[in-house]
């Protein structure tokens, strides 16, 4: 074999190939950049003006851009209601009342509800006409929640998302959200409410992420998402509506299903606790969250 000659031919061929690929890469990057418009100061000022007109203010910071994301495939986590009831009520486990898709255990003082889709809800009956008690402070409630979950077994991928006092109800709320591959799955969460007498309510909706599915798609920019919020200002009560944060993630409701696909969202959280989930592919609202949630 004439190696020098072969090498010369290969060098020539690969040079041509690289020139060709370089041209392709350059043109792709151009179109990619077009789809990732970096906001200018003028863009940000215009957005501020629009939000201001709607009685809203921009968050202190927001992500400039996020990588393209595909759907996330999840499935419900099966829960053994009988076993859980034994752990909650001990040997005096009350009888179960079955409705389609759910089991309810109650001894009159505390109630446990478990659904086929893996939702758990436990709550204690409030004492009638009880005097207003001191609301647990945030660090105290957080400590109690972490201790409780450590005993129960904090699921993998749980991240503390919220600790908030609800003075009107005399409770402090602690919420953990599931995280998968660095992104929150909003709607897959553990919700605890504490009063001065301890744990009042526990809600668990925890999913099993199966993996990403489908092709990666570009997300609307955070700027675009915030513009959509300004467009929907009339859906919110009047008054100052400071936007606390905007963050990417996935959001889903619980379905009575074997498995389902979940879209990426932008979660817009207002300072008063109101949350808005915008489909990150379209910018359309997925669901307006409840206040404080």
């Amino acid at each position, binding site marked *: 074999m004439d190696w*020098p000659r072969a090498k010369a031919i290969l060098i020539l061929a690969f040079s041509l190939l*690289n020139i060709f690929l370089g041209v392709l890469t350059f043109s792709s*990057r151009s179109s990619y950049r077009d789809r990732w418009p970096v906001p200018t100061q003028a863009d940000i000022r215009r957005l501020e003006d629009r939000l201001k007109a709607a009685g809203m203010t921009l968050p202190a910071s927001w992500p400039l851009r996020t990588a393209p994301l595909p759907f996330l495939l999840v499935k419900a986590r099966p829960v053994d209601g009988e076993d859980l009831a034994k752990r909650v009520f001990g040997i005096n486990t009350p009888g179960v009342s079955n409705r389609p898709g759910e089991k309810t255990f109650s001894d009159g003082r505390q109630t446990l509800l478990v659904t086929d889709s893996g939702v758990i809800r436990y709550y204690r009956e409030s004492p009638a006409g009880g005097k207003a008690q001191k609301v647990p402070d945030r660090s105290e409630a957080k400590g109690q929640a972490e201790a409780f979950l450590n005993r129960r077994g904090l699921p993998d991928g749980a991240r503390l998302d919220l600790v908030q006092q609800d003075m009107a109800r005399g409770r402090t709320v602690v919420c953990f959200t599931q995280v998968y591959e660095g992104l929150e799955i909003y709607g897959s969460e553990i919700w605890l409410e504490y009063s001065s007498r301890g744990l009042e309510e526990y809600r668990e909706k925890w999913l099993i992420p199966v993996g990403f599915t489908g092709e990666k798609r570009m997300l609307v920019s955070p700027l675009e998402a915030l513009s959509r919020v300004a467009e929907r200002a009339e859906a919110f009560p009047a008054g100052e509506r400071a936007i606390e944060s905007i963050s990417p993630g996935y959001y889903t409701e619980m379905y009575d299903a074997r498995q389902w*696909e979940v879209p990426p969202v932008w979660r817009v959280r207002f300072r008063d606790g109101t949350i808005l989930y915008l489909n990150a592919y*379209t910018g359309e609202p*997925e669901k307006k969250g409840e206040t404080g949630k």
Partner: protein
Amino acid sequence: MRRLGWRGLFPPRQNPPKQQHGGKRGGRPGAEAFGSLLLAVLVFLSLFQTGRLWYFSHLPIPAPPAEYDLQVERSGVDLGELLQPLAIILHQEGGKHLEFRPGQPGYSSLWQEGLALLPLQDGPLIPVAYAEVRQARQEGVAVEYILPARLTLDQYRQAWGLERGKEEGPTIDRLLLRFTKTTGSYFLDNGQGEAYFSGKSLTVGDLSLHLPRGAGNPVTELPTVFRGISLSEGLYVPLVSPVISGLALAPTKVASEQEARLFFVDPSLARKVEERDGAVFYTDGVGGLRIYPTGDLEYSLPQPDRPPVKSRAALQKVAAFLKAHGGIPEGSFVKEIRPNPSSQAMGEGRVEVSVVLLREGLPLLGGNFPLEFQLTENGVSRFTRILRPISGPSPIKRTVVPVENLLSQVVKGEDEPRRQIPRLTNVYLAYYLPPLGVPASYLRPVWVLETPAGARYSFDAWTGTPVYP
């Protein structure tokens, strides 16, 4: 001729190169090393660039606008097929009546005769006493077209491809061509007992009546009062109780994922939810489509009630929607167009359109029609489709309970909820369609009783027992 393969492009050297200056073959070692290094760099660079391009090529291409439906709508849709008569009654001398259903011999020729004669009748519609119609049915030759829905004559004319009349006219659900004595056309709102006459002359000669021998099913007209129950005029039932079978169902055909995604503006944005009962739900966060294991479909797209939609535009939208999503099923007939119960009147909000399918000459319906729509000017906001593939007649074949026996049973109140039926506007045989998502092994024949309020009651045609959705 010398063959030149790829080897021919770079033929091997015939003579080895001469060694120069007694040095090594291939030139300087520095240049050799540089060449190797350059080649390695070029190989790695090409791999890197290929990988990068592959990654970016997997980024989505912006979705095309949803012009699919619009294009179908713009190209025009033939509504004539959806508004052909559900049945044609040939009234003969001596009080004999023959019924022709779609697909049966004689139906097409009678319908073409009617379409040819109808344009001649463009005179003003004069309200007449219903007794004239009664007389026309009983004496001489007349052809009565039982139309699928209550629409204005003008709307029918447009749908059938005829010239529009001078006036829109009242709503009609029947057309009767009379060929003896006072010849002409009657346009009936049979459900309301109203009749209109257009007096252009028709003669028997105008009706060629090229009917195959033995075509048509002998029918008889029901009395207008039966043991206290009032019945609309012009209701025809078989003269002799027929022996009929049910319809056997073929294996379920469930819409593919690709078909399902066509319901969404950007199909790739629809995510899939596999429900525990075997149904699959697709949603893009706005609209939703549920496909049941039975193959039935339920689609919804929340929309404001306004702007309202008119009947004809509603029908065009329905036809366009069907064409865009699997096509108009064979044997489809528009059965009802009415304002949504929450709307006050037509043209004030959402409109409901129901489409019935005819199989073996009988309609398929139960609690639901096979195709049901709710729509506004913006388009279809709700759509349900119950299409069960039929393989043929089921093995069981029995004689149908005479309708008189059924009505006697209703009068006696053997079926409690149906005791309060003072009036019936329609009585006919049909195949019972199970509700959305409910499986069935076959479709049984039923008697259907319709009231003026639009309620429908089904009774097993073999046994007379009520069938509940």
